[in-house]
């Protein structure tokens, strides 16, 4: 994107935004476990999120395995901005706004593909895979009036980087590096995305659906809501495996929540609990086979969360479930709607039959018709929709489960909390949200979390 000094688009400043920023501190008392419902319905807060969360943070835009060859591309979203993520001839990756800089039309209508150039449907402007303007229909007319194609290429994202095959991009030239942004979460990500030298890949395509909920409802569920599983998903668990979800709240000594920079992971040490919910013994057997290898590659602790009862959100809107192997982004579409993009990830080295079983298993559980996705979607929709009520929206919400469970003396990276049935990660998520929303720029974002890991 254009740097700050050359930015030509007017920013949505003015009294309305100033009021919104000033009132941010009134939205949360996280130490008391209280927060306002306003963050789930207010249009002005949503506009500020587009500026200060989605145009600033590192956002997931694709998996390296989706674009192996030069010219391979995927269409992705960064907030409401549609971007094209394109493999370059030198093996690098670039990201561009999916819009023609001439008259603004959408450039590519494909979800994914391979191309030599992107040609706009409107006036035939043609762009190389590196974003440069190559030419256009009626080029003689442009040349006759002194047009210089240089400087009329596609609008490029500020930075794009990968971690363990996961590609992230940011629109903010002043953003920290991806490594700094992820921080200590990399230690935990390695357990799932770096089980062996080959890493992971996506199998099958992208399944998309719309849920009428605020994007944070979904993100907070995956950041730390182990609590809902035993209640919300009871019938789903009985359908899939013939029994209730394990009562993980009764054994807090063997489970954790960890968070860093607003990213959060809740997990226990049962190795295969999430995987078991797919009802496929071959997958459970595969993970038990991987566990000693991961213990050797990383450590015993991390080998016990490769498919355990767990969930994770990478701030702000990317989540996944180890074991169920669903990977997803919750794209905001206003304060009360998301477009959900879902993929299945597998170890690249896994046998083809195992990959296919995971693809089917994740579709049966975490697709629009999946037994668990439907349970969640209805709850999130009504947790959002109730706030259309004028008096309802003025009532506070509780987010205080697990206050005082911080583990102070631990070698584990990140902020560590005892017991996965906890809302510590919710509070860390919303603290990060608040810090970003209040900050004028990245320099003003408080550095609350100091990395333990020097990965």
């Amino acid at each position, binding site marked *: 994107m254009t740097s700050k000094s050359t930015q030509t688009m007017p920013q949505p400043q003015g009294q309305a935004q100033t009021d919104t920023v000033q009132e941010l501190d009134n939205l949360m008392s996280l130490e008391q476990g209280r927060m306002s419902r306003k963050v789930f319905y207010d249009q002005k807060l949503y506009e500020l999120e587009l500026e200060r969360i989605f145009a600033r943070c590192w956002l997931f835009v694709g998996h390296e395995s989706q674009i192996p060859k030069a010219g391979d591309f995927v269409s992705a979203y960064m907030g409401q901005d549609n971007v094209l993520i394109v493999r370059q001839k030198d093996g690098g990756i670039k990201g561009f706004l999916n819009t023609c800089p001439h008259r603004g039309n959408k450039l590519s209508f494909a979800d994914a593909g391979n191309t*030599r*150039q992107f*040609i706009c449907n409107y006036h*035939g402007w*043609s762009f190389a895979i590196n974003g440069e303007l*190559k*030419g*256009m*229909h*009626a*080029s*003689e007319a442009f*040349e006759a009036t002194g047009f210089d194609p240089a400087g009329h290429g596609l609008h490029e994202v500020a930075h794009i980087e990968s971690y363990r095959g996961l590609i992230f991009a940011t629109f903010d030239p002043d953003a920290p590096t991806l490594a700094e942004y992820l921080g200590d979460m990399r230690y935990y990500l390695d357990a799932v995305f770096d089980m062996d030298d080959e890493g992971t890949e996506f199998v099958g395509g992208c399944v998309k659906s719309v849920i009428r909920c605020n994007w944070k409802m979904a993100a907070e569920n995956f950041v730390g809501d182990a609590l809902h599983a035993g209640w919300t998903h009871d019938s789903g668990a009985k359908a899939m495996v013939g029994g209730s979800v394990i009562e993980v709240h009764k054994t807090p000594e063997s489970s954790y929540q960890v968070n860093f920079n607003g990213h959060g992971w809740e997990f226990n040490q049962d190795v295969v609990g999430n995987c078991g919910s797919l009802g496929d013994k071959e997958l459970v057997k595969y993970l038990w086979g991987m566990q000693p290898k991961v213990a050797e590659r990383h450590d015993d602790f991390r080998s016990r969360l490769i498919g355990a009862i767990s969930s994770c959100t990478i701030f702000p809107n990317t989540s996944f479930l180890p074991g169920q192997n669903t990977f997803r982004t919750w794209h905001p579409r206003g304060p009360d709607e998301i477009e959900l993009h879902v993929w299945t990830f597998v170890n690249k080295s896994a046998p083809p039959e195992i990959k296919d079983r995971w693809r089917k298993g994740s579709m049966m559980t975490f697709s629009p018709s999946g037994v668990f996705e439907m349970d969640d979607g209805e709850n999130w929709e009504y947790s959002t929709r109730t706030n259309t009520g004028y008096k309802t929206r003025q009532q506070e919400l509780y987010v205080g489960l697990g206050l005082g469970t911080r583990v102070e003396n631990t070698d584990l990276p990140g902020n560590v909390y005892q017991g996965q049935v906890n809302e510590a990660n919710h509070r860390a998520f919303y603290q990060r949200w608040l810090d970003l929303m209040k900050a004028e720029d990245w320099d003003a974002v408080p550095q609350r979390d100091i990395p333990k890991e020097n990965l």
Partner: protein
Amino acid sequence: MSNTVFEVDKATLKPEGVTLVKLANWSVAVYQIDGVWYATQDGCTHARASLSEGELLEGGLIACPVHGGTFHVPTGKAVDFPCERAIRTYRVTDQGAVLTIDLTQPSEAALAEA
């Protein structure tokens, strides 16, 4: 009148591909397709583009690198959208180590079609 017949050293040309060759004031695309040599104008007839930066496809077609339109190299005919007007072809004679390219004569295939 300036020279219109040129010799081109084959060692300077891409085998089984397309190469841009400057012959005096002319930009010429020289192709080898299935062992046979051809030459055409380098500029696309639709919009400004250098065909030698394009890609050779099955059936002796060159795809323009800008809009992806195609021409049939042996005859110069425009084949696919948005190309409508043929490109000029030139007579190529294979002399062994060198090619002779005559810019005043169309290719034999183009002549046969005309």
